[in-house]
C-alpha cells in the first residue's frame, strides 16, 4: 500500500513539484504585494513629510494584515443595473491574468542544492521558448479586466475610466513592444533565459555587460539605454500607475474603473495592479539589467562582492535591534529586536561562508537570487518614487507623449541597434 503510494508519487513527481511551486510562488507574491503597499505608503508619506502607517504593529508593519482583514469583512454591495456576468468576471480576469504572467519568469539559474523526490528543482515554473511573447500576450489581454469593469459597472465615472484605460493600453503597447525589439535583436531569442545568458559578458566586465550598456561577447553593441527608458515609461503606463493613472485618477474620476467595486472584488484589482508592477520590474531586470548577473565581474579580485548580501544584512539587522530597543511601545521593543536579530543571524551565516565550505555553497546559491531581487526592488522603488513626485499627465499630453515621442524614439532605437549589429557582422 505504502509502496504503491510511493511509486505513484515518484511517477508524478514533476506535477507535484510544479503544483507546490505554483502555490509557493502565489503565496510569496501575495506577501510581497502586501508589504509593497506598506512600503509605498511609507515612502510616499516620507516624500510628503508625513509618517505614514504607524499604528498597527511597530512601524505599521501589521498594516497590510489589517487591510487584508478589512477587505474580507467589508460589505460587498452590487450596484443596480450592472451587467452581472461581466461585473463579476472583470476582477477575476484581472487577477488571474496578472498572476499567470509570473509563471514564465526565471528567478535564478541554479537548481536548489538538494533534490526533491529525486528531481532537480529550478527557480521557475516553466521555461518556454517564447517566454517574452507569452508575457506580451498576457499584457495584451489584461486590459479587458479594467475596460470591462468600467463598462459593466453602469456608472459614468467607471465608463470613463474604462475608456481611458483601453485607449491608453492600445497606445502604449506599441511603444512597449517596439522598445524590446533591440534586446531581441541582441539575444536572437524570445526565451527569457536565453536573453539573460546572452548578457553573460557581465562575468568579465560587470554591469557593462548588461543590455543597458551592451558590451557583449562580440564587442560593444548599441547600448539599450534609450530602449530601456522607453520600455519602463510605457510599462508604467501599461500598469496604470502614476503619473499615467488616468483610468482611476482619484481627483477627477473618483476612482475610475473600480468606483463601483467594494470589498474583496476591489482587493482583486488592487492585487492585480501590484502583481503587474512586480512582473514588469522582473521583466525590466531580465531584459536590460542582466537578470541574475552580478553587477561585478567574476574575477578573483571582485570575489569579495559575494559577501554583499551579508555586509548589507548585518548592519541593517544591528540598526533594527537598536531602533527596536528605543521604540515607544513594548510590542515594538519585543518584536523589532527579534526581526533585527534574525537579519543579523542570516547575514552572519552568509558571511561565515568565507570559512565553512557548506555555508560557502549556501552563499553561492544566494548570489543570483540576491541580485535578481535587488534589481527588482530598485524598479519597485522607482514606481513609488514616480508616484510620489510626478503630477498626473493630462489626456492629450498622454496621447502626444505615447504616439509622438515614445513610439518614434523606440523605432529609431531598433534601427540603430540593427545597424550596429550589421556593422559588427554578428549573426
Amino acid at each position, binding site marked *: 500500500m505504502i509502496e504503491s503510494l510511493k511509486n505513484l508519487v515518484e511517477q508524478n513527481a514533476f506535477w507535484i513539484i510544479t503544483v507546490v511551486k505554483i502555490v509557493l510562488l502565489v503565496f510569496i507574491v501575495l506577501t510581497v504585494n502586501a508589504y509593497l503597499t506598506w512600503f509605498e505608503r511609507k515612502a510616499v508619506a516620507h516624500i510628503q513629510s508625513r509618517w505614514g502607517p504607524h499604528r498597527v504593529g511597530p512601524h505599521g508593519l501589521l498594516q497590510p494584515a489589517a487591510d487584508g482583514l478589512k477587505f474580507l469583512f467589508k460589505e460587498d454591495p452590487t450596484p443596480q443595473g450592472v451587467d452581472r456576468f461581466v461585473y463579476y468576471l472583470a476582477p477575476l480576469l484581472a487577477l488571474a491574468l496578472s498572476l499567470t504572467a509570473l509563471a514564465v519568469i526565471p528567478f535564478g539559474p541554479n537548481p536548489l542544492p538538494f533534490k526533491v523526490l529525486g528531481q532537480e528543482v529550478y527557480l521557475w515554473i516553466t521555461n518556454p521558448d517564447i517566454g517574452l*511573447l507569452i508575457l506580451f500576450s498576457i499584457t495584451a489581454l489584461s486590459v479587458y479586466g479594467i475596460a470591462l469593469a468600467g463598462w459593466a459597472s453602469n456608472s459614468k465615472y467607471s*465608463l470613463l475610466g474604462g475608456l481611458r484605460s483601453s485607449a491608453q493600453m492600445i497606445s502604449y503597447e506599441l511603444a512597449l513592444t517596439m522598445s524590446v525589439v533591440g534586446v531581441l535583436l541582441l539575444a536572437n531569442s524570445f526565451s527569457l533565459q536565453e536573453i539573460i545568458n546572452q548578457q553573460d559578458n557581465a562575468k568579465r566586465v560587470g554591469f557593462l555587460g548588461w543590455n543597458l550598456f551592451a558590451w557583449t561577447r562580440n564587442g560593444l553593441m548599441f547600448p539599450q539605454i534609450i530602449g530601456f527608458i522607453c520600455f519602463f515609461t510605457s510599462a508604467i503606463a501599461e500598469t496604470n500607475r502614476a503619473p499615467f493613472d488616468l483610468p482611476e485618477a482619484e481627483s477627477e474620476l473618483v476612482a475610475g474603473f473600480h468606483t463601483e467595486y467594494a470589498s474583496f472584488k476591489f482587493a482583486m484589482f488592487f492585487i492585480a495592479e501590484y502583481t503587474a508592477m512586480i512582473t514588469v520590474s522582473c521583466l525590466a531586470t531580465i531584459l536590460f539589467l542582466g537578470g541574475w548577473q552580478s553587477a561585478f565581474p567574476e574575477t578573483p579580485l571582485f570575489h569579495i562582492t559575494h559577501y554583499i548580501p551579508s555586509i548589507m544584512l548585518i548592519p541593517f539587522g544591528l540598526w533594527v535591534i537598536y531602533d527596536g530597543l528605543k521604540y515607544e511601545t513594548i510590542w515594538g521593543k519585543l518584536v523589532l529586536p527579534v526581526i533585527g536579530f534574525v537579519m543579523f543571524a542570516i547575514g552572519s551565516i552568509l558571511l561565515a561562508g568565507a570559512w565553512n565550505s557548506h555555508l560557502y555553497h549556501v552563499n553561492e546559491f544566494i548570489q543570483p537570487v540576491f541580485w535578481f531581487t535587488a534589481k527588482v526592488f530598485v524598479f519597485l522603488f522607482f514606481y513609488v518614487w514616480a508616484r510620489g513626485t510626478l503630477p498626473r499627465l493630462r489626456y492629450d499630453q498622454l496621447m502626444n507623449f505615447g504616439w509622438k515621442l515614445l513610439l518614434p524614439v523606440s523605432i529609431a532605437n531598433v534601427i540603430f541597434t540593427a545597424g550596429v549589429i550589421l556593422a559588427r557582422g554578428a549573426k
Partner: protein
Amino acid sequence: MTPVLLIFFVLAGLAVIGALSLVVQKHPIHSALSLIVVMVCLAGLYLLMGAEFVAAVQIIVYGGAIMVLFIFVIMLLNAGEEERTDFSKLAKIAGLPLALALTAAISAAVVKPDASIPNATQAVIPDATKLISSMLFQEFVYPFELTSFLILVAIMGALVLAQREKK
C-alpha cells in the same frame, strides 16, 4: 485518451461554444467577449500543434489589439442591446440546409486521410520562429511588403474620410 487529446477537446468545445454564443448574444459587448474566447481557444489549438509563435501572435494581435479596439468602439458608442428583427426569408428556408452542407463538406475534407497533411499533434519544432521569419523576409518578402503597403493605404483612407467629416 491522452492528455493532449483531452486538452484539444476542451479547447475545441470552448471555441465552438464561444462561436455559438457570439451569434446568439444580444449585447455587442457579450458578442465581442465570446469572440475573444474563440480567439484564445484557437491560440491554444495552435500551441497544441507546436506552433508557439503563431499562438502567441494570435493572442497579441487578435485577442489583444483588434478585440480591444472592438470593445473600445462599442464602449465609446455606448451601444445598447440589439433588437431582433424577423430574419430574412432566405435564411429561414435555406439557412439550416446550407449550414449542414458546409459542415459536411468541411468534415469530409477533414476525415479523408491525406498523407501530405502533417500530423496535428507533433512535438515542438525547434527554432520555429526563425523559420517563419526567414520565410517571411526571404521567400515571401514581396507579398509580405505589399500586404503592409495595402494596410497603410487602408489607414490613409480612414484618415481621409475622418478629415472630410471635420470640414
